[in-house]
């Protein structure tokens, strides 16, 4: 890690001013930033500690039934907030499926929105990576890329966004509040992260010095009864998603009035599946409907390397998320949040197998 100046501004205004100096980064918990500094991906000249800034660690309920979450609210505090988990169960489930209990206790909401890709070529500073070093190329394209993007990628970059939290947020049209040199502004979360284009792989639309101070979720009571996040992993816990999906349904009996759907780990941003949502309006909640929606969601998918299986998996995990959501939000958080596996409490009892 390089030497840097460490600044601890007392107010938001001081922080924004301090960060106007080039080479500055904000430090909240540091669970992603410090890691990137240790492996040399980020070498800031100034680290501006915002972790103690007042007023950014609150969950506030808004008069319209929505919620405002301060950027410094810890992932676990949000997930275990009873009112929040009841109102936005898929968000809570996504949060609890991410990282480990220790990391969730530290990591902040704002940091989660801005966590950087896990692409091995991004993390390996000896590799070419347009995202780390614009114009250097993309070594992932011809490299070990079985877990890379299947949607929205270009030859510039085939990395995926690693966040679980951001997937249901994208589905829910979360709004990101940003404070910067030019004052305060807001962005829909779909506009926060950028997909690579033909010439670059810029990650977010934030300008240097911009600070996420909070996040708003609109009221979503109609969806709370049928909301799930499902995540496929290569081990049962403490692993990034191979693919994931958030599905929330507003049901009228067994008919879907409307839905909110997003996919994770398939693209450089959490992937809102508008086409799938459109395909579900007014349809009966059944397997065929869900298959149709998943087909719509992945119509543009194409492998970026050795990863065609991810398209199949993304399709299937979306069908699964819809199926589980239509069955209703569980009354208690599953023991293995977002896992396709039901919890296991004891060695399998003798009578539980159906032998054909």
């Amino acid at each position, binding site marked *: 890690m390089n030497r840097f100046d*460490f600044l601890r501004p007392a107010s938001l205004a001081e922080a924004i001013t301090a960060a106007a100096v080039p080479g500055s980064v904000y430090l909240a918990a*540091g*669970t992603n930033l410090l890691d990137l500094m240790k492996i040399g991906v980020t070498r800031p000249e100034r680290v501006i500690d915002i*972790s103690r800034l007042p007023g950014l660690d609150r969950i506030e309920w808004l008069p319209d039934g929505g919620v405002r979450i301060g950027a410094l609210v810890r992932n*676990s505090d949000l997930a275990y907030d009873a009112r929040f*988990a009841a109102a936005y169960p898929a968000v809570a489930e996504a949060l609890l499926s991410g990282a480990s209990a220790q990391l969730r*206790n530290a990591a902040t909401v704002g940091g989660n929105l801005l966590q950087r890709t896990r692409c091995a070529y991004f993390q390996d500073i000896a590799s070419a990576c347009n995202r780390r070093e614009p114009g250097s190329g993309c070594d992932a394209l011809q490299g070990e890329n079985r877990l890379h993007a299947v949607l929205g990628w270009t030859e510039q970059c085939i990395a995926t966004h690693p966040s679980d939290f951001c997937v249901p947020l994208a589905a829910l049209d979360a709004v990101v509040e940003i404070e910067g040199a030019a004052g305060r502004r807001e962005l829909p979360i779909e506009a926060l992260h950028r997909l690579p284009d033909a010439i670059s792989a810029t990650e977010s639309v934030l300008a240097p010095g911009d600070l996420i101070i909070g996040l708003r979720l609109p009221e979503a009571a109609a969806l709370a009864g049928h909301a799930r996040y499902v995540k496929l992993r290569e081990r*049962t816990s403490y692993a990034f998603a191979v693919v994931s999906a958030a599905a929330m349904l507003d049901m009228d009996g067994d008919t879907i009035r409307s839905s909110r759907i997003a996919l994770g780990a398939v693209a450089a941003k959490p992937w809102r599946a508008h086409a799938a949502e459109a395909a579900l309006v007014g349809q009966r909640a059944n397997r065929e409907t869900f298959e149709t929606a998943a087909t719509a969601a992945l119509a543009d998918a194409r492998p970026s390397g050795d990863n065609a299986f991810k398209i199949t998996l993304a399709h299937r995990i979306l069908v699964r998320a819809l199926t589980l959501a239509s069955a209703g939000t569980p*009354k208690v958080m599953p023991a*293995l949040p977002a896992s396709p596996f039901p919890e296991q409490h004891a060695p399998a009892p003798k009578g539980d197998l159906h032998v054909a």
Partner: protein
Amino acid sequence: MPFSISLTVNGQSNSIALDDPRVTLLDLLRERLHLTGTKKGCDRGQCGACTVLLDGRRINACLTLAASLDGSTVTTIEGLADGTELHPVQAAFIACDGLQCGYCTPGQIMSAVGLLSEGHAGNDPERVRELMSGNICRCGAYQGITQAVLEAGHALSAKNDAQPAGVPEDGRNAA
């Protein structure tokens, strides 16, 4: 740019002069305060060996910048036993053989203490397994670890019976 932070470690308050802003909480504990019970397994938040309680919550000390902790309270494995009396989690780890080489053990134990105070696992082994999954044990002592957390949970709730318990009986939170 030397500056100092005040940090309470295992009940003792310290004023620590930091000559280098790069020092993580883990390296501060190990190399400067010589509290070496907390272990470095990966230094990247990927194994849990460095788990300590920061202001009562379990976190990875390796991904925490010491400079940002002014005024905080840290509890490490060295601060867990009450004099000659082992903490129930420590005793349970021995009784259940929840350790082999012992290197991940301080992190496992601090994580278990954090888990029990968080109160989301109840007496459900599957929840314990999930919520202990941030602590890798390469020797494979997981079965003993899970058992130890459950037994320590029983011991602690028996101890705290007089007080209202923070742990829901079935260990589940409303979703």
